[in-house]
């Protein structure tokens, strides 16, 4: 365990130094972060700007803003920690550099999941946390609610990671899979709004098929104390189940690796 922590530190150092090589990139990334938050707020503004609308799907403006905050935070987690690694899986398979990863005496899933960080998108994390704090400041939030939300958000991150890994792992068979990232982003865009804002069939889809509801709505509900116990337990169970399933899927994929020719 301590060995893997040490590896994390080494990987992080290497990926950070590599990014410091390209300073101009930083400005672009900052603009992208601001663009993201602008779009998210604009969506909320349009909905709540309608005369006579004070709640959507039973969520007040502040509560909906809380969901948007979790959405931005998740965008940040994806851009900083998840996507930089996952998007390189298909590349590594196409160019054959996956060979080196698979021949290292460390767990290959750990290797492909932790080698890279996109520190340039770290502002997204701060923006997300800021939005959550701002939204919560206008609501009655208990310390227990914050703790619950934090724990459920850990499950949420695990769920997001598993979905990304499963989608990226398909590259072992299909090689080029950039479009699966778009697929995820398309569906995940729905997470900027509370699930109850959607019609029932869509809500069911976002809960049971692609568990987007667990990513933003559930932690927000926990924070406002509106979460039922059943739903609170479902999130870690879904996360654990997904983790096991994607692990098995990964192992299978690695077993059928064909290694691009020399």
């Amino acid at each position: 365990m301590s060995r893997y922590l040490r590896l994390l530190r080494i990987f992080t150092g290497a990926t950070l130094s590599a990014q410091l090589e390209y300073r101009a990139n930083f400005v672009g990334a900052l603009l992208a972060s601001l663009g993201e938050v602008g779009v998210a707020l604009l969506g909320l503004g349009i909905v709540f700007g309608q005369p006579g609308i004070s709640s959507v799907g039973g969520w007040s403006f502040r509560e909906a803003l809380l969901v948007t905050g979790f959405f931005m935070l998740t965008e940040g987690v994806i851009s900083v920690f998840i996507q930089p690694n996952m998007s390189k899986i298909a590349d590594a398979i196409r160019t054959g550099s996956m060979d080196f990863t698979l021949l290292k005496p460390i767990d290959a899933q750990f290797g492909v999941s932790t080698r890279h960080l996109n520190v340039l998108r770290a502002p997204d994390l701060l923006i997300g946390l800021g939005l959550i704090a701002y939204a919560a400041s206008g609501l009655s939030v208990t310390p227990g609610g914050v703790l619950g939300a934090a724990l459920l958000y850990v499950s949420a991150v695990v769920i997001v990671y598993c979905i990304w890994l499963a989608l990226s792992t398909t590259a072992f068979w299909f090689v080029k899979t950039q479009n699966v990232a778009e697929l995820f982003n398309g569906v995940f865009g729905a997470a900027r709004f509370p699930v109850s804002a959607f019609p029932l069939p869509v809500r069911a889809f976002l809960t049971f098929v692609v568990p987007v509801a667990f990513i933003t709505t559930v932690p927000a509900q926990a924070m406002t104390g509106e979460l039922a116990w059943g739903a609170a337990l479902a999130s870690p169970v879904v996360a654990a189940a997904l983790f096991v399933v994607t692990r098995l899927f990964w192992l299978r994929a690695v077993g059928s690796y064909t290694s691009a020719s020399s």
Partner: protein
Amino acid sequence: MTTSPPDPAVHVRDLRKAYAVHEKEPGFMGSLRSFVSRKTRQVEAVRGVSFDLHPGEVVGFLGPNGAGKTTTLKMLSGLLHPSGGEARVAGFEPRRREAAFLRQITLVMGQKQQLIWDLPALDSFLVNQAIYEIPDDQYRATMREFTDVLGLDGILKKQVRKLSLGERMKCELAAALLHRPKVLFLDEPTIGLDVNMQESVRAFVRDYNERHGATVILTSHYMADVTALARRILVIDQGALVFDGDLGSLAGQAGAGKTIRLQLRSPVTAQALAGYGQDVSVDGLSAQLRVPRAEVSERAARLLADLDVADLTVEDPSIEAIMADLFGHRTPPALERA
């Protein structure tokens, strides 16, 4: 193979690998058809290869492109699962890719790189040090040794993207051998390098083999790589092992002579050269012909005396030429042991 020790470093019996490949007709319509319904075909890349290597042995693994060399190396390193047969490397079954096994081997591929592109090679070395849990003192000793033999001074702190191909290959080798593996799979480690760089790569491999008693399997297109490093040669053709023996008997079997290249001052006809050797070809003022190995100096002397020669060079036949001589368009002969 009478003195085979009980525990060979590499043990291969009837190793096989079949791939499903999909075929596509050329052109856009072909692509469209292939997108809708893929035709797949089973290709046997390796069909029933067997050999044993002693610890510390260096062998050259030869064969034309697509013969199955790389596929075999990938099976032995654990990247590919064999579709049949048996392989044991350093006492392990490669396909399981156990950590203890991976610590004892390395695979160097001349056309792929593991170094971090945007950082100096030293950063990649530190990552590998952590991955392989190399103690600091061992790391320092190994780095001293490699810096010495490979001449890494001054290139370790430059970003990898700024290194020349040769410098990068040296760093790739160092990164791949940092954990002092016992079994080395080297796939075209000198490809694309100039003669000096090829020589230093060879010197490094030889030195490592002697110092650490490592077993080495080497594939290369350059005759010099193989002659400099390996006493024993394995030749694979169309997925089957067709020769296993020493280099001399391979060249003898091939009957391949040397190639004499001429640069002439005045034109000659191919007929005029026919008396000096075989496979004569003339192109303007350049000409080349093949002569038997034993008669190289005598024929060269005659050419120099009889013709108006500006320059004359003698070359070893390329491995491809030997391969062509040996196995040209024939079906692979039965395994011969020298």
